Structures are given as structure tokens and as C-alpha cells.
């Protein structure tokens, strides 16, 4: 009996070595451990031996059975691993450098820059407002303190309509509407399309975008205005921007300023972009004129505020190096479809 056990172990080891596939291993399992398998037969044969021998032989047969079971499962793992490896090695290597499909469309560059600004302003508690393009003389001029004889009202600058309305010449035309709508305190920006009746060329457009902002509250001061403009512009240009204010005259602010930033090209050293002054004129701003507040229904004795106007179209041109302003309204997708990401 003992010899049979050993003989079986040896023959199993030989056959296992020869089994090269999971099917062959399965066959082997049936041949040894199946209902009529040799090990099973051996176990069955135990009933014919004496009790004394039975115990000892039983142990040997069971050891054999467990060894066979273990060797079989080991072999199956090996074969599976080898098969997996074969499959892996046989797989195609895909060309990830092929052109891909499913690109998004594109945002107009004005939208791109407008959204960046909107995000900065909303993070500082400003609402984003929107205003009509066809406005009244009152909204565009009267309500922002532009007197009757001001050159801005001359025909050559403003598009007038048959019914006496006009195409807004600046986003300030929305100031009265915003002040009336929100009252004080108020923080709002209002981007919008503006129109100037002039011949177009590479640097002049009759249709362009501005973004205006106002902040009205108790005790808003010039000191706050400078702080705010500096903070805001540092966010816009993503670096610490030096600003300086010069007196500038705009009827809707008093005092009014021209705000310069240190030239971003030369860092203030002086170059051709900044006409060797180190400064670039960027945006008009100022303390909202008491008359404008009054007409907006806000008491100028109780509230003060500042306003600023950013040339959105100009910022886009500066930011992306657009040389011909007319590209922006051209509808030419060769130019515009480049702005895929907002």
C-alpha cells in the first residue's frame, strides 16, 4: 500500500509537469481526485485493511490527497498567470498621439476676459448687472451729469435713432438704472456693448465693450478707491501691480482720475509700449459725482461711492495681442475659435 501511495505521488508529479493548460490540469484533477480518481480509489481501498494499519495508511493517503489538491491549485494559478501574461503581451499598443475628437466650441474672447473679471468682482461681493444697448438721452447723458453742451453729445460721436433714443456710448449709461434698482449700499459691475459713431480701422471700432463698476456705501473714500483698484488690477493681471492716479476730468465723477499702471512690458523701466514713461493709462475712475448719486435716488450727504470703467475690448487686445480690433466683431472663426477655454 505504501508503495502505491509513493508511486501515485511520483506519477502525479510527472503528469502535473506535463499539464500545460488549465484544461489538462482539470483532467488531472479528475484523474486523481474525481469520483473514480486514483487517490479516491485509494481511500476507498482503506476499508479493506486492518484497523491498526488503517489509521497509519489513512494518514498517508490524506496527506497525498492534500498535497495533490495544493499542487493542482498552484499549477492552475501558474497557468492563469502565464495566460494573462500572454494576453497582455499580445495586446495592441494604441496610438495615443492620434488626433482626438470632441473638442468644445469656443467662447468669444470678450466673454473669456469678462468672466475672469466677473469672478474677481463677485468674489468681492459685487453683483453682475446687464443693461440695454439702446438707451435714452437721460440715461446716457443727463443722469450721469453730462451737460447739454458737452462735446460728448455732439452728433459725430453718438449714434442717434429716429425716435430720439441712442446707442449707449459708455456703460455709465447704466449707472442710474443700477442705483435706482439697488439703492445704497450697492456694489455692482455692468459689462456691456458700447457704440461710437466713428470710422473703423485697426484700432477703432464703432462697437466695443466696456465694464463699469460702482461701489456706494457710507464713508467710501478716495483711499478706499485706490486700495480697491490696486487689489482688483493685481488680480486681473495676476501680479502685484503698481498704480498711480492722475487728475482726469469726467462729468460723472468728482474728483475724477486717470489710473495708470506700471508698464507690464518693461516693469516700469520705460519702453516703446509705455512711451518710455514706465506707465500705461488703463482706466478712468473717480468718486461718483453727488449729482449722479442724487439722480440715482441716493443721498450724497449720507453716502459716497466710487466708479471705474474698464475698456474690456482693450483688455482683450492687450491680453491676447490682438492687433486689429475689427477681428473681434468679424465672426471669423479662424480668429475666434482659438478661444476654447473660458
Amino acid at each position, binding site marked *: 500500500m505504501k508503495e502505491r501511495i509513493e508511486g501515485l505521488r511520483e506519477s502525479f508529479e510527472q503528469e502535473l509537469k506535463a499539464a500545460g493548460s488549465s484544461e489538462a490540469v482539470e483532467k488531472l484533477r479528475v484523474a486523481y481526485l474525481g469520483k473514480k480518481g486514483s487517490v479516491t480509489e485509494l481511500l476507498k481501498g482503506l476499508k479493506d485493511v486492518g484497523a491498526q494499519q488503517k489509521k497509519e495508511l489513512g494518514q498517508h493517503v490524506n496527506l497525498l490527497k492534500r498535497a495533490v489538491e495544493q499542487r493542482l491549485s498552484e499549477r492552475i494559478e501558474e497557468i492563469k498567470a502565464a495566460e494573462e501574461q500572454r494576453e497582455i503581451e499580445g495586446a495592441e499598443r494604441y496610438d495615443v498621439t492620434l488626433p482626438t475628437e470632441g473638442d*468644445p*466650441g*469656443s*467662447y*468669444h474672447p470678450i466673454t473669456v476676459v469678462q468672466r475672469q473679471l*466677473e469672478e474677481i468682482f463677485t468674489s468681492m*461681493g459685487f*453683483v*453682475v*448687472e*446687464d443693461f*440695454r*444697448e*439702446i438707451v*435714452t438721452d437721460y440715461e446716457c447723458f443727463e443722469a450721469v451729469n453730462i451737460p447739454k*453742451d458737452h462735446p460728448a453729445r*455732439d452728433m459725430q460721436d453718438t449714434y*442717434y*435713432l*429716429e*425716435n*430720439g433714443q441712442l*446707442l449707449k456710448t459708455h456703460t455709465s449709461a447704466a449707472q442710474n438704472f443700477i442705483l435706482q434698482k*439697488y439703492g445704497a*449700499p450697492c*456694489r455692482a459691475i455692468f459689462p456691456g*456693448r458700447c457704440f461710437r*459713431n466713428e470710422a473703423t480701422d485697426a484700432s477703432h471700432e*464703432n*462697437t466695443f465693450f466696456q465694464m463699469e463698476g460702482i461701489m456706494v*456705501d457710507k*464713508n*467710501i*473714500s*478716495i*483711499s*478706499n478707491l*485706490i*486700495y*480697491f483698484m*490696486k487689489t482688483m488690477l493685481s488680480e486681473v493681471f495676476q501680479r502685484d501691480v503698481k498704480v*498711480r*492716479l*492722475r*487728475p*482726469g*476730468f469726467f462729468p460723472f465723477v*468728482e*474728483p475724477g482720475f*486717470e489710473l495708470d499702471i506700471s508698464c507690464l512690458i518693461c516693469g516700469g523701466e520705460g519702453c516703446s509700449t509705455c512711451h518710455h514713461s514706465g506707465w500705461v493709462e488703463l482706466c478712468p475712475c473717480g*468718486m461718483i459725482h*453727488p449729482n449722479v448719486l442724487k439722480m440715482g435716488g441716493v443721498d450724497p450727504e449720507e453716502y*459716497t461711492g466710487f466708479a471705474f470703467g474698464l475698456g474690456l475690448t482693450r483688455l482683450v487686445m492687450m491680453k491676447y495681442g490682438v492687433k486689429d480690433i475689427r477681428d473681434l*466683431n468679424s*465672426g471669423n*472663426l*479662424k480668429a*475666434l*475659435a482659438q478661444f476654447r477655454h*473660458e
Partner: protein
Amino acid sequence: MLISMNWIGDFVDLRGLDIPALIQRFTLSTAEVEDIYEMGRDLRGVVAGKILSVENHPDSKKLHLLKVDGGDKVYDVVCGAPNVREGLIVPFVKEGGMVGGQEIGMARLAGFESHGMCCSEKELGISADHSGLMELPEDTPVGRDVTELYGIIDTVFEVDNKSLTNRPDLWGHYGIAREFAALSGRELRPLETVSLEQFDSLEPIDIDVQDKELCYRYSGLKVRNITKKVSPVDMRIRLFYCGSRAINLLADLTNYLMLEMGQPMHAFDCAKVDSIRVRRFDSPFTFTTLDGTERRVDENTLMICTKSGGEDIPVAIAGIMGGLDSEIEGDTDSLLLESANFDGASVRKSSTRLGLRTDASMRYEKTLDPEMTVPAIGRFMKLLLGIDPQAQVISRLTDVYVKHYPKVELAFDKAYVDRYTGIEIEDERIMGTLSSLGFEPRQEGDRFTVGVPSWRATKDVTIKADIIEEITRIYGYDNFEIATTMSPLYPRRRSAGAKADNFVKDILVQTYQLHEVHSYIWQDVKKCRALNIEPEENIRLINAQTPDHEVIRRSMGPTLLSVLGENRAFGAQFGVFEIGRVAEGVRKEDGLVNERKNLGIALFSRTSGEKELYLKLAGIIKSLGRSVKRVELELANCQPEFKWQHPRNTAVIMAEGTALGWICTLVPSVLRSIDRKAAVVCGQLDMDAFASLPEGELSYREPSRFPGIDIDLSVVLPEGMRFADMEPAWKGAGHLAGVGLIDSFQQAGRRSLTLRFSFSSGEKTLSKEEVQPIVDGIIERLSAGGAVLRS
């Protein structure tokens, strides 16, 4: 405007100060300086040299051999100038000196040594005259440095005229000097003038200001016996440095006065003009200005006239330019001097109408101080008598003062200054700044009362916030401590319109790969015609650059269709959109334009059919409704609004009974004008109305833990039946969770749809047996409507 620092130095002593730094301060506190020019610094060793002898050059007709006394010794000089003569005193650069930045060394000219150079005015950089050597007065001390003698070394800076728009007081050197005085803390000297009261006993001039609306003040004085014709050298240099041109003494003096005080003046030849009438005429006429141009003058233009034989003869366009006939010429020895003040807006408008902008009109249109006219005459006489002591005043000062500006006085508290500036500025500083600028401040406790000087009171300084500007600009904005605002927190309200715009753009760009474009608010007639689209009638611009652009667009369609056509080569399939404005006529109730903000979409494809593209657009519109507003937008066939919309495939976009826009295919002629083969569709959504739709509620349903059952049914539709017409057949059916379209095809002329009905229950796994009766009910109702199950 060009400003000479030497001239400024006449009124405020800036010696010992850093001039470039002071000019920089001027930019930050007053007006933008665009350029700074250093004059005369390219000259060295230029002295007054006396030509002792002139010999002809043996071989040259042009050259002469000179002996020039340079003060220290006599120099041999070879010179080619035509006006050399013995005894002449000229600017002379000695050997080793410099002119125009060029070193002058010993040179050998046509065989002779030259140890210096005699100069023309142009070579010295003090005029454009290069006709010959500059001739210095006979009494010029030989050997004296010429640059010192005439103030040739100067710093001249150019101020951006635009930044002076609101400062009528800064259009002359004296006003600028006042700023420098305030900025440097030094004193402003008064202008030296001649007292005009001494002439009070003389006859007045016959001046009649008939137009009291447009002429605020007219002051005049007559002078005769003017013997000098040429202005002194230093005066001519200043004029040249400041961009003017020397003409003759009287013309130069009026220009000099204007550059000095900002008061335009006009000198009439007294022989031709001896009385003054200021008026407009009833009908247009032609008038020749002193530049020799014949101009058409209309009835709105104010004229200066003189009375002659009972008629008013025009002699000048008020505030703009004098007439050719009354011009001062070289032999004029008597003049009628005008120093006047006119309505600024009227001068500006006349100058625009005439297309004639002059140094005078530019100043008048800023609204000058009428108080200036008389001191300007006093100053003129001071200068004239200094140059030509023989000149004799022959009239009294005649001054017709029509319109006085009211005296402006402003009052405010210290707390107001603190609140407005956000910084602490001491009382003394406030008082000092205002005084230095010519204001008259008084202080009582915390209360300031400020008298505004006449030169700031014409329009510039009218409210107390204007005073804040005066205080802060001199204080210097770069000296401000800056600080964040301290305001209470409050919730930020978001405008529905701005929110919807952004959301819509994201969906169109990210999900549907459309490209955003911008266009114009007006209809482009040429582009419409190219599309075979008849231009619409709508409200017009009255002053468009071209009649092709004068009608405001009524729809986004044509604009975007043009964009598609222009981009045909961009790709086989692409789409564009714009959120822009259209005008839907004029509202009856208030006469205002009914402006609407609209989303326009246009799709182009050479790979998809028109139907596919049309349904894609319908899908885009519906997804906007679901994503942005959580509402189901409905589409229904409708009559086209425009002729270019296809009558069979134009659909209105509806939400809760309101029309929000449309989608359409195009009539063949328009379609083919864009592309012969491609499919094109377009649509428009009213963003104002869309943004104001109430947002749909999101009602959360527990996800079912049990699997559902899908039943596919293929139905054949009768002619004309739409999907929407079948919907009642399954509406409200038990356990029905959704209906989807699996397939759609034409069979034997009939439309066939395969629909998938999904059933599910939150309580149990549905069995086929449970669902079947529900399905049967649907089938029954469908066939009752004419849609039968395909066998």
C-alpha cells in the same frame, strides 16, 4: 500745449528746485505731461561775434573770408551765408564749441582755415529761419554768451490738451505757473500791467454788443504810432519754443499774450476797423479769413463787424479767426485791440461747422474767465510800451461787460474732507493749498468757507466735492495711505439675466461645440442681399456711417447666416451663436424701442441632413430649458415671421403658453446662397423672457431598488401625426417611468416609430403579467388615435 519753464520762471522763482521732478509732480497733480524737451543744451561756446571784415573767396562766389571778433580774440572764418557784412553782430561758435550737438573744430574750407562758425537761427534751434545768419542787435556786447543773453537754454514740456479740457485757467503760462507755485510752495508773482485808468479821459470806442447771448464781454483799446515791426529776439524764441511762429510785432504780441494768460486777442488795423458790432446775421454769406480761405458762414455764427456807411461789415469770426481784409500788415502803425469773451459752446459749434479749429477757438470753447479781458489789455500795453515806448493809446478802455458769472462760495466741514479722502489732512494744509491756488478760504472751528476765484468759477469748481479735488491733488495721490472699505456684509444678489447668459454659453460651447461670435446691432443691407434676404424695415439710425447700416436688426437670423456663409471653409460641420440685441419696433405706449436680448444659433453641415440638423437644434433648445431653468420648452410648427424662414419647418419655442423664439430651416433660395450642398438651420431664443421664467422645482424621487421592465412598441403613424399627438395615449399610465424613441423610419410612405416604454415600481419587481394590461391600454388608445401597432 507747449510750456516753457523759463516763461514760468517769470512768475514763480523755481531756482534751486529739481525741475524734472517738479514736472513729474505736475503730471500727477494737474495734467498729463506727454514730452519734455531740453532746448539749447546742444549749444556750447556760442557768443556774440562781430564781423570785422569781409573778403571774397578767390575761387568761390558763395564763400567769404571773415575776420570775426569773438571777444577774446579775432578769428579767421570761412562763411557761406549771403547776408555777411562788415559790422554785423552774429551768433558765433568758436573753435572747440558746439552747435546742434556738433563739435566745431578747425576746418579747412576751399583752401582756407576756418576757426569757428557763424550761425543762422535754425542752427541755434530757435526758429525755422535758415535764410542767412541771425542778425543780433547793434548794441549786443561782443563776446557775450548768446544762450544766456536770450534764454535759449530752456526746458519745454508738452501737456496733453485733452487733460486740460476742464481747466480753462491752464491755457496760458500764468495759470500753469500758479500750479507750480502751489506744488513747490513758492510764491506766485502778480502780472505786471499798465494801469488803464490813466486813459479814462480819452474818447471811448464805438462798441455795440448786439448779441448778448453769445458775447459775454468785449473790451477794446486803440493804439497808434507803433514804430517797431519786429519782435525782440527773446520773445520770438519763446513763441517758437511754444509752437508759434513769429510774424510781426503786433501779431506776435497777441499770440504771446494768449500763450501767457490764455486770453485770445485780436489786433485790427485801426485804419480799417474803428468801431465794433458783435452780432449774427439772418442769412448765410461768404467770408474770407486771414488764412486766405473763403468760408461759408451761417446764421448761427457770431461775427465781429465794423460799421461802415450804415452797414455792419464782418471783420472776424468771433473767437475763431480774423478776416483777411482787416489783418495787420507790416506797415500797420495803429490798432484796435480786441480782448473779448464769448460763449464757449457756441464757439465750439461754429468751429466744428466751419471745420476751423484755432488756438483761440480751442481756448474759448473751454469757457474762459471773462475777468481776464481787461488785465490782458493792461499786460499787452505793458509789453508793447516796453518794446516800443513811442506807442500811444488813443482811446479809453472801452469795456462792454454783458454777462457776469456769479461769485461762487462753498462751505463744508472738516468731517466731510475726512470722510471723502479717508485720510487725515491737517487744517493748515487745507488752508495753504487753497490759498496758493488763488481760492479764498476762511476757517471757523471745523467749518471751512471757500471763495472760488473767477478763473475757476466758469464751470470747473461749483460744488464742495470740487474743493476736495483741489486739496487732494496738491496733497498728491501717491501720498495717500490706502485702506480697504469697512462696510457691513450683505448677501449678493445675482441678476437672472447675467446668470442665464453664462449658463447658456457654457452649454452651447461645452456640450454642443458651438462657437460664440459678436456682430453689429444694425442690419447689413449688402449682406442681406447676398443671402437673397430682403432687408427688413425697422427703426433707423439718423446718422449712420453708411445707409447700408442704418436699420437696427429685427432678428439675429441674417447676421448669423452671413457668419456661416463667410466661414464655409471652416469645417464640414459647425455652428455659431451670439447673445445680442434686436429691436422689435417701437412701443406704442412710450415711443421707446422694444429692445430684446436674444440668443441666435445657426448650424451648418455638409455631413448631416437638414432634418437631422433641425432636430439637433430642437434638442439644443430643449436642453437649454432643462439645464438652465428646469422647464420643458415645447416646439410647435408655426407660420414664419420672416420670408427667409421655411414655411413647412418653422417652429415656435413655447414655455407655459408664452412664445420665446423660434427655430427654422431656410427657403431654398436663401439656403443655396449660403452653400450649394450644405444643410443650414437657425433659431432664436428671447433671453430676457427665458431668464425671467420661474425655475422649475426639482422633486426628488427615491431610486427604485427593483429592476424595471422595458417594452418596445413599433407603431405606424397616419399622415400628419406628430409624436406630441400620441402623448395622451400613455400619459398617466401606471408604473410608466419614461418613453424613449428607439427608431424612426419611413415604410411604404408611412412614418413608423419604435418607442421604448420603461416601467418600474418602488415597491417590487414588476412582472410581465402585471405590465401587460397597462401596455394593452396604451396600444388601444394609440390605435383609437390612428397609430397602429406594426405587425
